[in-house]
């Protein structure tokens, strides 16, 4: 393998701009998404403008953190060396009550028990001193 990719560090978000804002709220144990103050629509991933009404204004509105599994996969063979110890792991798309969807993991749930529509609620995991990732467990 290319030595440059042989690292065991997991990839992290680039903490700048709206990405830093999103993960900064996770640091504070709050799941917040952008909500357009022009038309009131929630959105994720963060954007600079609202694709519906064109407004540049938004607030970071707090989500209930409750949602359901929209779909999932089970990664049997990781494609990044840092995730080798996690396999098999089950990334899922979570649909929050507010209507936005996001990628996360459902923890404390064996992959074979994952199902579309399963109710979940957010928890937070500090993965480094700077970065906290939102994860979900069965609700």
């Amino acid at each position: 393998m290319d030595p440059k990719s042989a690292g065991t560090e997991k990839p992290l978000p680039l903490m700048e701009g709206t990405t830093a804002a999103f993960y900064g709220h996770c640091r504070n144990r709050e799941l917040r998404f952008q909500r357009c103050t022009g038309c009131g629509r929630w959105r994720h991933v963060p954007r600079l403008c609202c694709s519906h009404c064109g407004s540049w204004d938004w607030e970071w509105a707090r989500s209930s953190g409750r949602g359901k599994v929209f779909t999932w996969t089970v990664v049997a063979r990781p494609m990044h060396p840092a995730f080798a110890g996690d396999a098999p792991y089950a990334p899922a798309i979570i649909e929050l009550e507010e209507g936005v969807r996001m990628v996360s993991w459902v923890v404390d749930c064996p992959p074979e028990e994952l199902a579309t529509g399963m109710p979940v609620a957010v928890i937070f995991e500090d993965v480094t001193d700077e970065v906290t990732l939102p994860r979900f467990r069965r609700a």
Partner: protein
Amino acid sequence: MNALEGRACIVGIGDTPYLRESDGPGGRSLALELRASEAAIRDAGLRNRDIDGILPFYGLSIAEDLAVNLGVDDLRYQATSHVGGAGPGASLANAAMAVGSGMASYVLIPGGWYGFSGRRVRQIVVQDPSAMSGGANARDFYFPFGLTAPVQWFSFIARLHMDRYGTRPEQLGAVAVAQRKHARRNPGALMRDKPLSLESYLAAPVIADPYRLFDCSLEADGGAAFVVTTLERARDLRAQPVRLLGSAQGQPFPADDIVTREDVFELGLTRATARAFRMAGIGHDDVDFAEIYDPFSFQVIQQLEEMGFCKRGEGGAFVEGGRIEPGGALPVNTHGGLLSEAHILGMNHFVEAVRQLRGEAGERQVKNADIGIVTGFGDFGDGSIAILGR
């Protein structure tokens, strides 16, 4: 008739051998792109210096790297579309507009990589997210959750399709098996000598559920290229021209995020296909074969649906029963595709379509091949479609 009026055509094709050898040279792709380009220019009966337009593949060698080595000393037009695997089809449309408008006369479209002995896709996307469409979103919101490779992103959509429409693993397998049957008739295919049964497909290890090993394309070293000019100029060249009858591109919305789309099955092709068919003045029944960009098996089913060859949800049944196999009603990926010939960025799909339409496809020749389509698919669903005719 339309803006293109079928006046642009492919007049030369070229490729290198496609290889999977761990002691391959790796490194920069330039040598492969040059070898394939030389072959395509020779095939057209042109000299290198006749080329005056070069449309490189995004992330590979830039136009001047190619021009200085080929001795192209009067380069008038260059451009690259940032749409990943949809790039070759986008570049063909771009070339057609360039030669149609007089911006250039003979346009070279090269591609190639050391996809096996060099950096693998899974390394490229993590080390250099800007090299992919949707890179910043993937870097910030997919990678931290262990979704670092295309096989994982697209497995979500395959799983959802299975849940919603009852698509079965055997139907994904039907794509892999059909394409292997095509590859077995192609001397240049990496899997030429390796038969694949549905049983061995199902017995292979899971990579990212529901994708098993043989649902995945075959990363390889190799290059391919083609040359585009006008029909008028083609009359003076030796090869039988293959005409571009219709062409369109599209992107799902939002293009950089597969997760939050209102319609998660939407592809660029969903809206683009009708435009291309209208431009060509043909219908689905007129298509004699289809070279469909196939990073993974399900993406073939999905593109067939989104192009309207069958209804959404019926793609699994569509690919069963031999329809897409050699001799079927709609042979798909007659060279074996990325799954069983080699992953040469979809450039090999164009080379194969031209061989079919020239009647030069040997034992895998589709009978009476008059019209073929070639699709391109980039992350996360960028689409291009070219309708080619002889």
